């Protein structure tokens, strides 16, 4: 990965970036922005669903109204609690808990500290795989993805990548087409 990345200016090597600066300063408790935003989004979703449910008859609408109404209440309550908590000073215990909470290599840790580039790249590979699955079907995309991902992202040798891809295709074909005759995503052209 030698070319400069247009998205961010950082020159972090591939993989997990060192801890991002944002969550580091813990001297003062910050507003849990993510939680508040998520709660508000969910509140909007519940409210919208509640509105939709009002059009239905009593029988069909009873449960939806109960669930979505409760959802709106809980999300708003959550936001209120978060805002109140943010105004009170932080007890010392909580900080310690947070610190030893995320062992390096934990899923939470990886998600919180992976750089923007790593995220963009991983999501692009995943998107490529599933778009390919839809467009060209399983038997084409599976070996193709294995080959390209291993060669250009993991940087394994050509020999290994080709062998991996060939094995993938062989196993898939034998298992799903020959042995079980189970349907697999066919792609748009077949």
């Amino acid at each position, binding site marked *: 990965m030698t070319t400069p990345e247009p998205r961010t200016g950082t020159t972090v090597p591939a993989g997990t970036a060192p801890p991002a600066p944002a969550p580091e300063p813990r001297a003062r408790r910050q507003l849990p922005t993510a*939680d508040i935003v998520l709660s508000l989004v969910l509140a909007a979703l519940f409210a919208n669903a509640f509105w939709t449910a009002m059009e239905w008859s009593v029988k*069909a609408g009873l449960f939806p109204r109960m669930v979505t109404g409760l*959802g709106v209440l*809980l*999300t708003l309550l959550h936001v209120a609690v978060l805002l109140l908590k943010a105004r009170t000073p932080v007890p010392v215990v909580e900080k310690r808990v947070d610190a030893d*909470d995320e062992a390096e290599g934990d899923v939470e840790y990886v998600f919180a500290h992976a750089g923007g580039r*790593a995220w963009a790249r991983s999501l692009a590979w995943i998107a490529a795989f599933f778009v390919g699955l*839809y467009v060209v079907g399983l038997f084409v995309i599976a070996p193709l993805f294995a080959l390209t991902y291993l060669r250009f992202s993991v940087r394994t040798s050509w020999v290994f990548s080709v062998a991996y891809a060939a094995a993938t295709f062989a196993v898939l074909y034998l298992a799903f087409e020959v042995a079980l005759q*189970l349907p697999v995503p066919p792609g748009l052209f077949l």
Partner: protein
Amino acid sequence: MGEALLDSLSQVLQLQTLGLMLLGVAIGFVVGILPGLGGPVTLALMLPFTFGMEPVQAFAFLLGMLVVTSTTGDITSVLFGIPGEATSAAATLDGYPLTRRGQGGRALGAVLFSSALGSVFGALVLAAMVPVIRPVVLALSAPEFFMLTLVGLTFVVALSGKKVVKGLIMACLGLLVALIGIDSQEGIARYTMDQIYLWDGIPLVPLVVGLFGGAEVLQLMLSRSSIAGGAGAVPKKITGIGEGIRDTLRHWPVVLRASGIGSTIGMIPGLGGSVAQFIAYGQARQSSKNPELFGKGAIDGVIASGAVNNAKDGGSLVPTIAFGIPGGAATAVLLSAFLIAGLDPGPEMLTTELDVTYSMVWIVVLANFVAVAAAFAFLRPLTRLTFISGPLLVPFLLLLLGLGAYSSSNSFGDVLVMLVAAAIGVACIRWDWPRVPFLLAVVLGGIAERYLFVSYSLFGWDWLLRPTVIGLAVVLLLVFLVPTLRRRRVQAQPAPVAEEVRS
């Protein structure tokens, strides 16, 4: 009864029958490991091969296959964090964290051994139920099922840990997702966004695979380390399998309780394993000495999810045998096998065909033991996979995700559901919202609504006065009260340790 039991054992132990069972076990083994490709579809594929078989042979083949899928489904869950079956989601919760710490062998040992014990328990329940099957099943009706779904929903609190409000919100979201589809009362399409695909509701298998598996694959892509990356260097020998077995024996009350929950819920048509696993898991968390470890690699959580999975198989055979009412999709296919074999499920199965019924008991036990023994043989190479470079596994795991989702109803819509669920799962982990209450609510929400309406239509408000309903209401209260009381007791003594653990 004893004679019939022995008689049926000798039938199962015949060479040809055993051979067919081993074949079934081998197929079920592979199918269980692959996510999405589940028991029902495979059973339907294999059904035509049972023409001309004796009843016991046909069941040795089919039932052997079916019970093994839920055992080996746990292997994928523990090793890769992708549920091998919809019923193996709970096994990912603690099994996968253990694997990441390099204790995959121990987790697998525990989950497999508890599976074997659970299957024995379920089979015992089935055998013991024979004299009372019919009155018991007939006594249970929609009101009891509704109360059970409520008991299940109360575990949302236990499964949220200390993030109770977040857990409740996620449960509400799950209930909302469960409402998607045509409603059963008036045929109104609710929240279907004009997609006929959504009329039957959100399919469970893609949801489970995405919610739990998606985040784990993304994590491997991001971190570029091996699954057991936190464990340091690759060990020369994979150890810990024996330790897992010892853990299971030490936690025998967990095994017992989880098995009891599994076989009871398995008996109820429509609930089944996807519900039972979380109730057993939640129960294990509540009664555990260190509940704060749950979700971070608690061995008793792994044991509970292993035991419940296989105990439910014995239970789910109860309504099928006694009334020809399948407890789930898999037993529905099994029902066709009854007809092919020339058997009519019903009273005959408990009288003249009793030996066939008992042979099923034996098959459940034997097949599980064979599978677990075989799995132990494969454990070392499998566990080694978790020490190789993570990105090398990515193409393979993405494939499992895609195929696992697609094969649930052969529609690309399933893949989309899986991707959305994966996004939810990733968001949950990133911002620390609990995933499990969401899934539990999705599974229980639709059932709760249906049974509430059926209860009211059938009995008016009188259903509230049924003795079994009142009994279940007491259970409900206990589920709520016992942990609260226990917490009180803990708080009564000054215990700063409890405050230190993570929320």
